């Protein structure tokens, strides 16, 4: 049953991805050239392509699993000629590109936000784009780094170690571009900007600890410890949670026509980001010291650990409670701002991209009077030729 549900969900994702890709290819506003497309749109397109090219084997594997469980076939049963490692391959061939499917849109959201709130052009538009494509291509060659202790040939493990370490190069390049974009900008620390900056900071930690785990020799020791758990959360927390909060707070005025409360937003930010770090930083230490991630209470195994390690686990648990409670602030802020926040103007952040030329919230079809025409790229902030203001909307003639 769950396999059918997962399979149907993936089919839905596939069709949604096709919708994104064809919309970006075919329904662009007049004058919107390839290099004028906002980065977040590019990232969604690349993520959709990655998804549709990686999910097929998992769908196939899902059908095989369904038959194994309900019809009595033996695709993954070694007793009757099947191979359980095959399931791992089919799963991770999807599972690793999927990481980048989730990552890239968040990277795109951050690109939109840091340019607006640093009032600077994105340092390397094409660099980010090409590195995203490079990441996508490489992401199909790294999957077996999840299987280093599954009985994989060590020579093969070496190959996957190399590809895994290689993929950190384009990602690092993106991070450098973002830091260079921030350098010398006039930064306003609004709530979305805080989220975007924390994304860069936290994802950097996640990426760097990935290099530890990607090396097969080291992974044999680290495998299934809290270190893996902490690494996972330092990648997926920035991607899924921080990226979502950044995008949500940035586009909230556009979506609901109201401004969010910035003070509450910042309170929520700090009460989320500090506990997040005090949950997962200790887990790196615990994992390196040998705590296994399937054992949550080592008091039953005192010979395998030390009391100071239990204290770190307690710290992580208390931090988690604080972080969960802090989310109440966010929901309170969303509901009160939605009901009675100050009415949002069309373009509250003085941003360049087209969505800010529609009314907040946009009507059906976004621009009932016809599509705007695009004259320039999305990141022309503080342009020297533009004397009247520090931004230059994409749809404004020169």
């Amino acid at each position, binding site marked *: 049953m769950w396999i059918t549900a997962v399979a149907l969900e993936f089919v839905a994702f596939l069709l949604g991805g096709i*919708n994104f890709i064809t919309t970006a290819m*075919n*329904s662009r506003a007049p004058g919107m050239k390839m290099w004028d497309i906002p980065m977040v749109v590019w990232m969604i397109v690349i993520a959709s392509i990655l998804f*549709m090219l990686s*999910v097929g084997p998992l769908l196939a594997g899902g059908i095989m699993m369904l038959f194994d469980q309900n019809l009595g076939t033996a695709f993954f049963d070694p007793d009757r000629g099947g191979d359980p490692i095959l399931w791992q391959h*089919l799963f991770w061939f999807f599972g690793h590109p999927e990481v980048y499917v989730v990552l890239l849109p968040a990277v795109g959201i951050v690109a939109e936000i840091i340019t607006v709130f640093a009032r600077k052009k994105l340092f390397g538009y094409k660099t980010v784009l090409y590195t995203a494509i490079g990441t996508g291509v490489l992401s199909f060659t790294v999957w077996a780094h999840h299987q280093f202790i599954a009985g994989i040939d060590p020579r093969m493990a070496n190959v996957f170690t190399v590809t895994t370490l290689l993929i950190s190069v384009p990602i690092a390049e993106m991070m450098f571009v973002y830091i260079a974009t921030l350098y010398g900008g006039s930064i306003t620390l609004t709530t979305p900007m805080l989220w975007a900056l924390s994304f860069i900071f936290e994802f950097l930690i996640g990426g760097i600890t990935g290099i530890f785990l990607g090396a097969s020799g080291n992974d044999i020791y680290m495998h299934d410890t809290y270190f893996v758990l902490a690494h996972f959360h330092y990648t997926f927390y920035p991607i899924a949670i921080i990226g979502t909060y950044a995008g949500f707070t940035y586009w909230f005025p556009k979506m609901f026509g109201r401004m969010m409360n910035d003070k509450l937003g910042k309170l929520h930010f700090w009460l989320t980001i500090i506990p997040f770090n005090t949950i997962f930083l200790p887990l790196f230490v615990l994992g390196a010291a040998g705590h296994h991630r399937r054992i949550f209470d080592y008091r039953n195994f005192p010979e395998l650990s030390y009391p100071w390690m239990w204290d770190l686990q307690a710290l992580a648990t208390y931090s988690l409670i604080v972080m969960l409670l802090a989310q109440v602030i966010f929901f309170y802020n969303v509901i009160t701002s939605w009901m009675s926040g100050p009415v949002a103007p069309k373009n509250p952040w003085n941003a360049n991209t087209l969505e800010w030329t529609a009314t907040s919230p946009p009507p059906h079809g976004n621009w009932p009077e016809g599509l705007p025409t695009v004259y320039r790229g999305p990141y022309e902030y503080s342009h020297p030729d533009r004397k009247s203001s520090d931004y230059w909307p994409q749809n404004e003639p020169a």
Partner: protein
Amino acid sequence: MSRPIATTRSAAGMPTPRLAVWWLIASEIVIFGGVLGSYIMHRLAHGIWADYAANTNPWIGAFNTFVLLTSSLSAVLAHQAAERGDGKRAANLLYLTTLGGAVFLCVKAYEWTTEISHGMTITANTFWSFYYTAAGIHAAHVIAGMIIMVIVAQTAKKNLELHRVEIIGIYWHFVDLVWIFLFPLLYIAK
């Protein structure tokens, strides 16, 4: 009837439905790639599968290949008729294509019944598991294609939405092409 902008603008110079169906096919290729890739890896590792494969009937497979290829021809003719604006003829040719799909499925049903009654069931061994799974996923695509084709033909008959005839044709050719891969892998390679 006013249409949403996404279906009318064509910045890439290709109609959106055609673009979308090509992307759909790209995603289908990896689904079948996953099954066939797994099958080929297993097959290479188990020489004995050649003995199991000897029990398949290549003549029935060849006949089905012929039926599917012929049905693709009528799909092309339907597209040609739709280009000329002859919706009635296009619809009839689509019905003919659907008939080809139905013949394919009937032959398949006969073939599978014979095999199953001789003990070659999906659980007999991993070769037969792959045989039924791969061909079964393909058959599901044939059925889906036939259903869509009937819907397309219903509107094409009234000279409406003629561009759809081409779209379903592209999909049908793809389903056909998958069979071209399945036939040698499951029937001919002994």
